[in-house]
């Protein structure tokens, strides 16, 4: 890898406020006359609303607004667009899961708001509900949305190549069923926002959104007001992971309450609301069939996916679409068939979540590989290495692999965990597992495209203002985008002042999701910085003479390779401080210096009829390895060691990259071993607090090791690719494969709780 001045350096995070307590999140803001908003939610999983009486609530002293569907324009949210819109901000007359929003109140304080909720009288007609997607698909199942037969929101069959023929050529065929459960984003900061419709009818929203762009667009649509009259002001965000990558109900409802009351309204979810009513990772049932040759070559893959949508679509159609594409792109298999169903059930519903459908399918595919390896008598690592692809490959769904560190990642992961030693070791119930991944760096999955913009302004004091529309939800993008600007422009980091995320002032950016920030926003920033650099040099030439090509900027000084006029190189190097160039331009010529950057990668929209398209301009890769020790008497798994090896291209900031990988690994450990939602017969979520919804604490994790392999991508800014999501994808299969290695028992249902492992070992032992 090349060496740069600022890029690639371990530069501390610029958001110092996070360690002083000064960082302001939504709930830290208090405005004069601000009201507290609370939401009335359905206690039933499926019911018609016969009537709502809000009269007593309205009369309660201190209540300033009570809203129901009648107070809206009756417009559904867009999310992924037609024909998938299926939800109104407040129930139109039917509720479809426990927690579905029916009404909302704004009052002078929380106690009054909650009292007002209790005074709203709703008359329900209970309907039969269905919670299992395979049951929901059957004729006669309760119909959740009137326009959707058999609760099947999406049914697609993708034929990449000819899987049927390829199965006929296979020596062995493996068929397995895998089931993965839901997962909460688990953001430490509960969802919330503050809205204010001012006297001019301009809607101001303070939100921790990952995409002000989408929130602005949705609110404009739902309230039927021009986009320029919706201003999203982004606060620090206590998490993200996809939970806030599209508009959330609290943003719409706080806006509605403000519209009605004429005052600012803050809506903050309780932890119970956060766990039981916000988006989740889509649970999936996967039937996986793989055909292989005796020598281990993968010949054919067929998967039937039944994704549990929950009560509404949200981004389900896109999540499933991407998961299907990646099913064809894990390892070299030319002939793949995927049949997928997205099925409504009366439960809280799925949305975008780190990995976007891939952790689910990767779990199935990677787990089965270890079973195949065992059957064929081939080492699981060797089997993978035999079937990986390289730069230049095009996957069956059309992903063009322009850089690929898969081999390096697998080899390094094995070496770092001590793979060979663990395999040879006779330690009982100790095992090692390995898994890999592919992921996009941004993806053209929405009709809007896949763009980012940035503006860079040079000031007369030599400082540079960087305006970005992207969101730092803890991903360190404030720091890494500043590094990119500093490197391209030739100034030190402390000269960059970054402003992000006020849609009135900052350029348009589709947001922080899809692992797009470094690659796409980073390129936009680089283009803007280069544009500014050229303007600064032009201003210098106008002032001093010489030729543009002979100038460069280093450490904030514009310098020349050649002597200019009377000043000879060597006598006194031509040095023109950046600030002086700004003055020269603004004061002598009256020209402000702004660099503008807009980047949209050369990727393709997904072809909806074939499920193909090179939706990203670069793909990241990784391999993870886990070492476990299982207690056969309790089924408990001790994660002794874990290593994540990633191909992220050029890391802009290694601390940030390591952090992303480690955090994603932790989230993956939770997914693999402990995080679950269970529902009672009435559809109530039982895990409604962190006491019951168990996320990994520090006690559950070893020191998480990371490595970055030496690969660059020509298209990425300074060679960088995305890293936000990939780290979660191979974690569960690496751990499950390690448990398989340790116990001989393959767990096919996540999470792999101690009970499952205990009974799995007993069952497999009894076969011996």
């Amino acid at each position, binding site marked *: 890898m090349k060496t740069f001045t600022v890029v690639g350096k371990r530069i501390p995070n610029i958001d110092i406020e996070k360690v002083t307590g*000064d960082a302001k999140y939504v709930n830290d803001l208090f405005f004069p006359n601000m009201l507290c908003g609370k939401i009335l939610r359905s206690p039933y999983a499926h019911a018609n609303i016969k009537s709502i009486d809000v009269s007593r609530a309205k009369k309660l002293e201190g209540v300033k607004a009570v809203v129901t569907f009648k107070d809206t324009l009756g417009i559904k949210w867009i999310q992924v667009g037609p024909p998938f819109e299926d939800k109104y901000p407040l129930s139109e007359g039917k509720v479809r899961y426990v927690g579905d929003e029916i009404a909302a109140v704004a009052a002078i304080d929380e106690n009054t708001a909650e009292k007002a909720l209790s005074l709203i009288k709703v008359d329900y007609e209970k309907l039969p509900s269905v919670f299992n997607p395979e049951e929901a698909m059957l004729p006669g199942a309760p119909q959740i949305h009137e326009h959707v037969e058999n609760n099947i929101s999406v049914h697609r069959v993708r034929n990449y190549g000819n899987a049927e023929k390829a199965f006929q050529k296979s020596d062995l065929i493996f068929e397995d069923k895998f089931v993965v459960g839901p997962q909460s984003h688990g953001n*430490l900061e509960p969802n919330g926002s503050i809205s204010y419709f001012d006297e001019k009818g301009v809607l101001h929203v303070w939100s921790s959104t990952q995409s002000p762009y989408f929130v602005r667009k949705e609110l404009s649509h739902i309230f039927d007001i021009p986009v320029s009259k919706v201003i999203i002001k982004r606060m*620090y965000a206590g998490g993200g992971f996809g939970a806030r990558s599209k508009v959330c109900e609290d943003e719409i409802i706080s806006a509605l309450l403000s519209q009605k009351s004429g005052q600012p309204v803050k809506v903050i979810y309780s*932890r119970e609301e956060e766990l039981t009513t916000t988006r989740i990772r889509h649970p999936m049932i996967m039937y996986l069939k793989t055909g292989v040759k005796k020598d281990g070559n993968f010949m054919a893959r067929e998967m039937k996916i039944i994704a549990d949508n929950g009560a509404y679509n949200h981004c389900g159609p896109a999540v499933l679409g991407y998961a299907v594409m990646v099913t064809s792109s894990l390892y070299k298999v030319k002939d793949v068939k995927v049949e997928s169903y997205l099925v409504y059930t009366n439960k809280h519903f799925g949305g975008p979540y780190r990995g976007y459908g891939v952790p689910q399918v990767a779990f199935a595919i990677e787990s089965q590989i270890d079973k195949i390896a065992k059957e064929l008598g081939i080492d699981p690592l060797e089997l993978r290495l035999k079937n990986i692809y390289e730069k230049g490959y095009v996957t069956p769904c059309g992903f063009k692999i322009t850089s690929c560190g898969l081999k390096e990642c697998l080899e390094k992961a094995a070496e770092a965990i001590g793979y060979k030693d663990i395999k040879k070791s006779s330690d009982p119930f100790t095992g090692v597992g390995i898994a890999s991944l592919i992921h996009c760096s941004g993806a053209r999955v929405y009709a809007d495209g896949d763009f980012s913009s940035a503006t860079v302004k040079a000031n007369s004091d030599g400082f540079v203002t960087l305006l970005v529309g992207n969101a730092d939800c803890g991903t360190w993008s404030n720091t890494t985008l500043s590094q990119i600007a500093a490197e391209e422009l030739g100034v030190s980091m402390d000269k960059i002042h970054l402003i992000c995320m006020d849609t009135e002032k900052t350029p348009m950016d589709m947001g922080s999701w899809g692992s797009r920030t470094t690659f796409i926003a980073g390129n936009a920033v680089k283009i803007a910085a280069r544009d500014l650099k050229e303007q600064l040099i032009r201003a210098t030439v106008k002032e001093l003479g010489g030729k543009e090509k002979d100038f460069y900027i280093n450490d904030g000084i514009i310098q020349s390779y050649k002597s200019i006029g009377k000043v000879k190189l060597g006598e006194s190097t031509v040095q023109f401080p950046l600030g002086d160039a700004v003055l020269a331009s603004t004061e002598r010529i009256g020209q402000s210096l702004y660099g503008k950057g807009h980047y949209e990668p050369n990727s393709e929209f997904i072809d909806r009829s074939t499920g193909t398209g090179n939706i990203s301009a670069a793909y990241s890769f990784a391999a993870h390895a886990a070492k476990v020790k299982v207690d056969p008497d309790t089924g408990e798994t001790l994660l002794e060691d874990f290593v994540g090896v990633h191909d992220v291209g050029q890391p802009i900031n290694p601390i940030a990259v390591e952090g992303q990988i480690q955090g994603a690994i932790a989230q993956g450990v939770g997914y693999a071993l402990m995080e679950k939602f269970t529902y009672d017969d009435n559809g109530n979520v039982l895990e409604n607090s962190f006491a019951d919804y168990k996320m990994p604490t520090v006690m559950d994790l070893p020191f998480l090791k990371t490595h970055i392999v030496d690969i660059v991508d020509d298209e990425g800014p300074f060679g960088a690719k995305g890293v936000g999501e990939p780290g979660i994808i191979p974690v569960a299969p690496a751990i499950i494969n390690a448990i398989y290695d340790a116990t001989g028992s393959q767990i096919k249902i996540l999470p792999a709780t101690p009970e499952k492992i205990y009974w799995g070992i007993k069952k497999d032992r009894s076969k011996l």
Partner: protein
Amino acid sequence: MKKEISLIINDIKHDILVESNRTLQELLSKQLDLTGTKHGCGTGDCGACTVIVDGNAVCSCLVLAVEVNGSRILTVEGLKKDRKLSELQQVFLDLGAFQCGFCTPGMLMSAKALLDSNSCPSIEDIKRAIAGNLCRCTGYTKIVDAIKTVGHDNN
């Protein structure tokens, strides 16, 4: 029902009128503008609201303000001295021991409470001290590393 209480918060004396059912977390963040102490769950499960009361790390969402009448409280805002970051804060910054930052105040206070009672903690000591602080972003590795580094510097 309101009660008068007296507290020393970050070395400053406060005489406050507070509702009997107000938690310490609410008092700090809503009434005294010390918004660093976060509300993450309200049930003592996440540790985001951790502050130090008379030398002990506590979940301030589980403590009624009236219960700590007369106590010394330290919040994240009190870690700086003369407007300079404390060593603990500086090391968190230098080693990248945070991402979204929401758990960070609570994490810092748990670490501070530990280091005040044990200036050179082992990895096990550190893990036990922050076991009640959930972090969804970092995987804890850099946090443990940062606290160990401060401990090592103390040695």
